[in-house]
């Protein structure tokens, strides 16, 4: 018998700023290895680089559109699947990247990501004491994020 509670879990959230620096990392459930803070910084930098490379790997080269319209920039990694987890990457227009680690079968990750981005907008970006591109240390954000994901994980 499969325990469905264990199948739908958000493991962790990582936020990377537009320069590739780690600005937020938090685990919400057991499942991923714990790394020390240096390893997380290295991981964020590595992912930032890989993400940039993957935008250039498209094997087809469509003809350039007429110069009047601006084409969408190619997107980098959006979903990474492994045997143990699934990594959803949401890159905002300003280059901030949200990395959400979930169970491979987790449904509606887009919705969860949207909600997290909303919380980020409301409680980090609107916080007058938050300095752009610096590590996120905001109590309101922390409280609401943990509250939201705890409910989600215990469903």
């Amino acid at each position, binding site marked *: 018998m499969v325990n469905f509670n264990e199948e739908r879990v958000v493991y962790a959230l990582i936020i990377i700023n537009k320069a590739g620096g780690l600005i937020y990392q938090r685990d919400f459930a057991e499942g*991923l*290895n714990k*790394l020390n803070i240096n*390893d997380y910084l290295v*991981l964020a930098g*590595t*992912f930032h*680089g*890989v993400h940039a*490379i*993957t*935008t*250039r*790997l*498209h*094997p*087809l*080269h469509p003809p350039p559109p007429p110069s009047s319209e601006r084409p*969408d920039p*190619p*997107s*980098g*990694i*959006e*979903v*990474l*699947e*492994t*045997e*143990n*987890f699934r990594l959803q990457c949401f890159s905002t227009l300003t280059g901030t990247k949200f990395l959400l*680690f979930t169970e491979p079968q987790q449904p509606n990750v887009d919705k969860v990501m949207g909600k997290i981005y909303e919380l980020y907008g409301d409680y980090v970006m609107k916080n007058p004491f938050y300095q752009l591109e610096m590590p996120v240390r905001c109590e309101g954000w922390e409280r609401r994020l943990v509250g939201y994901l705890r409910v989600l994980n215990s469903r």
Partner: protein
Amino acid sequence: MRIGPPAKLGSCTSLVNSLLVPPSSLVYRAGELSLLQTRKMVVYSFYIFDRHTECIYSRLWARQDRPISSSAASNRPISTSSTASGGNTLVPDLGPARARPARLSAQDDAKLIFGTIFSLRNMVRKLGGPDDSFISFRTGQYKLHYYETPTSIKFVMLTDTQTLNMRNVLHQIYVNLYVEFVVKNPLSPVEHPGGEGVANELFELALDQFVKGVL
């Protein structure tokens, strides 16, 4: 590299067919995929990397409008060492490559792909434990599938984004094609520096048929 004289090509083809048809699971899988997939899947390219991080085989199916010198056009494996020995034919034209939105040469593509899968594999192992391995990633434009054998030979396939999990397809390519036609080939070396011995007639033919059969 030639396996036999050209006159024997017909018998080679039938050998390929007889080797490809028997595994019933394989045939079933191809049928299953075509049932599930209403839209036609597209395979863009396929790469094999050996344990020395070298690209020993690459194959591009999709139409390429990039200026490739000779490498992809003749379906020869592209690799650093063959560049060193192969003279000018494989050296990409550096002029357009320097410009900012320019296209990369096929060789650079292989290197970038290796760098990507290598970094991602290490990242996944760090987070998911040493037994974890990454299966695929998807961007807005394409999907990359990855399979690594216990001997660290890496199989990579780029397809369109709608394609389902291709890991077992890559596994089948390893078991039914790579092992049969490259590893068991008495004329092929144990290691494949510069892709030597990988791009033989039987393997290319079988790979082509297999990929067309799966889609």
